[in-house]
């Protein structure tokens, strides 16, 4: 679990948490400050002791001893474009880390509001991968950065295919993020219309069977559900169109947001879809988004929802 700039570990199912003494930390001489840990993901299945952490101020850390000690992959923060990295509203955060399922040396990271970077040599070198994404020209010397990626997922059957909820639209890449194209048929919003704007939201998730889900918001200016309707949209495998798959609370308006890590899919079949709102409610569908229930409890702002399967039962 990330808590501010620290990482905490529980070995009793979350009852008690202990802070890692040698957590991610920039070298003092780097001049960077680690403000928050945003993302912790396991390494490739062939490297079971490895964990990665994405942080704000943007950078990537690796642990090769199951999280006991951490080292910065400084090749990313020493990228030639680093002087042109500027934060989005949520900060200068590295919020997404994806690892190629067949090649542990290929990884992608997403940084707001900088863009996508890919390494093909285990993090020794990085290249920008933002061609095709919409960008507001800001006149900085490096036009290859300045892209506000919100969340990104990898296709479970084709690791050259990625899907992205972007600040200005929803995109797909079929070539390992070399190029991106919009996939917005059926979504509210319109990238041509200045009034509506391109489809805006934060999370995007994908099931093992390749179904994608996201939660469109009103707009970049108004970051709540469109017309107060808590609508989840799905794009099923084989379809090229998004459809509203669940009007989660049809009888009550919910003028809320769903943050980028507050939505997830489990690995069961049929799979479950889960998300939490900024007003502290958690909703789930155990049939792939067809029917929805509100889970018991009212919480604070939901930052992250994770499912895990535990001896015949599951919890989120």
């Amino acid at each position, binding site marked *: 679990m990330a808590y501010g700039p620290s990482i905490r570990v529980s070995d009793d199912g979350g009852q008690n948490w*202990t*802070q890692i003494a040698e957590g991610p930390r920039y070298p003092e001489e780097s001049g960077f400050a680690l403000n928050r840990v945003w993302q912790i993901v396991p390494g490739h299945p062939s490297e079971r002791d490895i964990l990665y952490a994405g942080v704000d101020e943007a950078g990537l850390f690796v642990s090769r001893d199951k999280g006991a000690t951490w080292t910065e992959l400084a090749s990313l923060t020493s990228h030639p474009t680093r002087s042109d990295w500027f934060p989005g509203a949520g900060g200068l955060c590295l919020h997404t880390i994806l690892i190629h399922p067949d090649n542990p040396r290929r990884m992608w990271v997403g940084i707001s509001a900088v863009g996508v970077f890919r390494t093909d040599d285990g993090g020794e070198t990085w290249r920008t991968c933002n061609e095709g994404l919409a960008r507001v020209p800001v006149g900085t010397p490096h036009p290859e950065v300045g892209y506000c990626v919100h969340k990104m997922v990898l296709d479970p059957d084709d690791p050259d295919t990625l899907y992205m909820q972007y600040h200005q639209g929803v995109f797909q890449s079929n070539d390992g993020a070399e190029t991106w194209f919009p996939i917005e048929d059926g979504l509210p919003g319109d990238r041509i219309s200045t009034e509506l704007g391109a489809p805006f939201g934060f999370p995007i998730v994908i099931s093992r069977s390749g179904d994608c889900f996201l939660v469109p918001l009103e707009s970049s200016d108004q970051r709540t559900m469109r017309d107060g309707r808590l609508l989840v949209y799905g794009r099923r495998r084989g379809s090229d169109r998004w459809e509203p798959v669940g009007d989660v609370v049809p009888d009550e308006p919910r003028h809320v947001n769903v943050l980028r890590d507050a939505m997830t899919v489990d690995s069961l079949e049929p799979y479950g879809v889960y998300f939490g709102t900024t007003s502290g409610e958690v909703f789930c569908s155990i049939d792939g988004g067809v029917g929805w229930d509100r889970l018991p409890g009212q919480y604070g702002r939901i*930052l992250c929802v994770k499912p895990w399967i535990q001896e015949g039962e599951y919890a989120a």
Partner: protein
Amino acid sequence: MPLEVRIPPMLRDCASGQTRFSITANTLEEALRRLFETYPLLRVHLYDETQRLRQHVLIFFNGESVAWLDRLDIPVRTGDQLTILQAVSGG
């Protein structure tokens, strides 16, 4: 001279489960140094790598923010308190 230290409950696991405890020091500067020597896990929550006090953290010495003090070699006297506050947020 003993100085009473108060920390937010969310950080108690960095201080052996305590939210109030004593540090013995002759000056405020020494008190801060001893605080982090005794409870090193606290430091990352209060200061970043550039040794700057984190934006969402306030450290009060007897009700005065240490960020506004010109010097830290202030003598510690009986009854002095060091209070650490942090704003909790997320996104």
